[in-house]
């Protein structure tokens, strides 16, 4: 029986997400939608951090590039087509990641962390300091993309529920895509690179190509999340690419537990929930947030997804040392 239970539980969770709009609270529906798209964003980073061992501190750049892509592709008074903007946004952010990847993947470890940050800062200043995307004030996405296809309109993004379900659908697709990817020989090589790149190299794998592909895919998936963000909120600002955003998404991955796709989603949920709850308590909510982060590092290694295992170990007296 045990084999199917995780799957069943995931389906129940998905059911919960699908049913959520029935609570009839537009704000919380939007909040859940945002959490889910951050979950997608975190999953895309987890592909790098958790599975390939590449810690990027500049992942927000690709999220932001996609958000700007749709904002810039949309004319002021008419809607752009969903069917062109969505693939373009993903494609452009994947391409940007590919170019950046060629440079940054020459470095390793701490240097890699810092160089990804440097490139993200460059992109940030590109949008912040030039008139390209409305400068420091950002730009509006006045009209949500139009979904007309062959004369029919399968769904309507101006309808918050349709948009919500599009985001959930994207989550499912991204999740399944990453699952399949990680199960494929390609994914096995990535995991191999994480545990021992030298060995993979000596086995004849050209690891650079694999890492570059992973970096670009992760950029594209972050782009999917960024696209959805822009459509959901209709406002794009350079701050989307600031190093704080890159830090936040890394936080989500770590909070959830690296190398665990559901964990990444869970980390996003925990992150958003903490922000929501603490900021209603006190003006100095960041103090609480900071303390929780520090305490969870000290007492919760492995992130939230490791909690059940640790609890069980504690209960059975096994202990983990």
């Amino acid at each position, binding site marked *: 029986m045990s084999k199917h239970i995780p799957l069943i539980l995931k389906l129940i969770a998905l059911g919960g997400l699908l049913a959520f709009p029935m609570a009839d609270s537009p704000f919380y529906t939007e909040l859940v939608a945002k959490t889910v798209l951050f979950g997608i964003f975190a999953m895309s980073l987890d592909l790098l951090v958790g599975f390939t061992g590449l810690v990027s501190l500049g992942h927000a750049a690709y999220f932001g590039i996609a958000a700007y892509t749709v904002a810039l592709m949309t004319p002021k008074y008419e809607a752009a087509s969903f069917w062109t903007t969505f693939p373009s946004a993903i494609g452009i952010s994947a391409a940007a990641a590919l170019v950046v990847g060629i440079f940054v993947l020459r470095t390793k470890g701490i240097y890699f962390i810092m160089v990804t940050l440097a490139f993200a800062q460059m992109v940030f200043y590109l949008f912040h300091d030039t008139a390209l995307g409305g400068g420091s004030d*950002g730009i509006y996405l006045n009209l949500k993309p139009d979904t007309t296809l062959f004369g029919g309109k399968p769904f309507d993004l101006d309808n918050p529920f349709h948009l919500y379900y599009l985001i959930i659908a994207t989550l499912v697709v991204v999740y399944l895509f990453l699952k399949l990817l990680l199960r494929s020989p390609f994914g096995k090589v990535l995991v191999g690179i994480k545990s021992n790149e030298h060995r993979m190299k000596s086995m004849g794998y050209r690891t650079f190509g694999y890492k570059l592909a992973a970096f670009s895919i992760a950029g594209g998936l972050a782009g999917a999340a960024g696209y959805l963000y822009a459509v959901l909120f209709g406002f794009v*600002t350079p701050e989307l690419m600031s190093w704080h955003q890159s830090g936040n998404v890394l936080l989500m991955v770590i909070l959830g537990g690296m190398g665990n796709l559901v964990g990444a989603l869970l980390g996003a949920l925990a992150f958003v929930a903490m922000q929501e709850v603490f900021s209603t308590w006190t003006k100095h909510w960041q103090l609480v947030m900071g303390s929780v982060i520090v305490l969870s590092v000290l007492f919760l290694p492995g992130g939230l997804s490791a909690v059940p295992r640790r609890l069980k170990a504690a209960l059975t007296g096994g202990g983990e040392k």
Partner: protein
Amino acid sequence: MKKQLQSLKRIGFTVGMTAALAASSLAQAEDKLKVGLMLPATGTFAALGTAITNGFKQYVAESGGKLGGREIEYFVVDDESDPAKATENANKLVKRDHVDVLVGTVHSGVALAMAKVAKESNTLFIVPNAGADELTGPLCSPNIFRTSFTNWQPGYAMGQVAAAKKAKNVVTLTWKYAAGLQSVDGFKEAFEKAGGKVVKEMTLPFPNVEFQAYLTEIASIKPDAVYVFFAGAGATKFVKDYVAAGLNKTIPLYAPGFLTDGTLEAMGDAGQGLLTTLHYADGIKNAKNDAFRLNYAKTYKSQPDVYAVQGYDAAQLLAAGLKAVNGDFSKRAEMVKAMEAAKIDSPRGAFTLSKAHNPVQDFYLRKSEGRDNKVLEISAKALADPARGCKM
């Protein structure tokens, strides 16, 4: 088994959080007028957020806790001056708390996001600080009001002053962000109209505060004056560096009042004798201002500043609208009409609103003295923003 337990916990957590989030949306009170204050409580602009809140609440308290006969209930969100969270924060007030009026904020980028939310939900929106020209320009709308200024305004006022002081060639310097660039545009417009010339427009990346390279440039150009747009800590450092470099001895420094508001203590001696233009100053003589200052000092144990005035006037403007409809918020069109026609008896001196809903107000030329920005004269009487791009 391990795995099941793991997943179970996960789900339990998800469901629990979702339920908690949904439940808290139920608590809502009726009958009171709901005012959403979206201002910075943390970060660089936290002090400004506090001053605006204080000013707003002071007027409400002076009116017996009611505006237009309606009791006021506050909903507060810390916007952190983070545009990336702005839409969501505004939605918190509009969609979750269902506020009647949205008041905020300091940061222009955040205010622009709020304007979008306000427009889409047709929520009444009053801006008590953010100076982005767009808010009462291309984005102007019947439900968007402002009780502060446009970035263009103090710049334009200073352009006139600089020309009157017989400056011919001026160098400008600002952070490369919208507020600074718009301010410089205002200055340039007035200054060049009066026959002066901006010989060089310099910008530095925000929030970089290493000014030496620019000071050296200025010294080699030797203009008749320098116009800058800086605020807060950047303003403090710039003025100190400018004075330490000895430039103030030969090249006068002009700026909108944000340079010296709330920063004079930190500037120390370097901040003395600076000329700035703004719609508020220390030593404005009118009964309203005296009462306002006295009351503020008593309530908050600190001296009010321009931000407190803007918050105070936001409440006054709202009151003017509510009074006209006897607190019946459903008569929005009538209310907006009353607000448009209102003459606000502000501590800064009475002002009216332009067609685009921005104050038509006097600008003071001020000189810093001790910790005060003392009024020298009214340099621009009833200055109105041109509201370019507004189709209202």
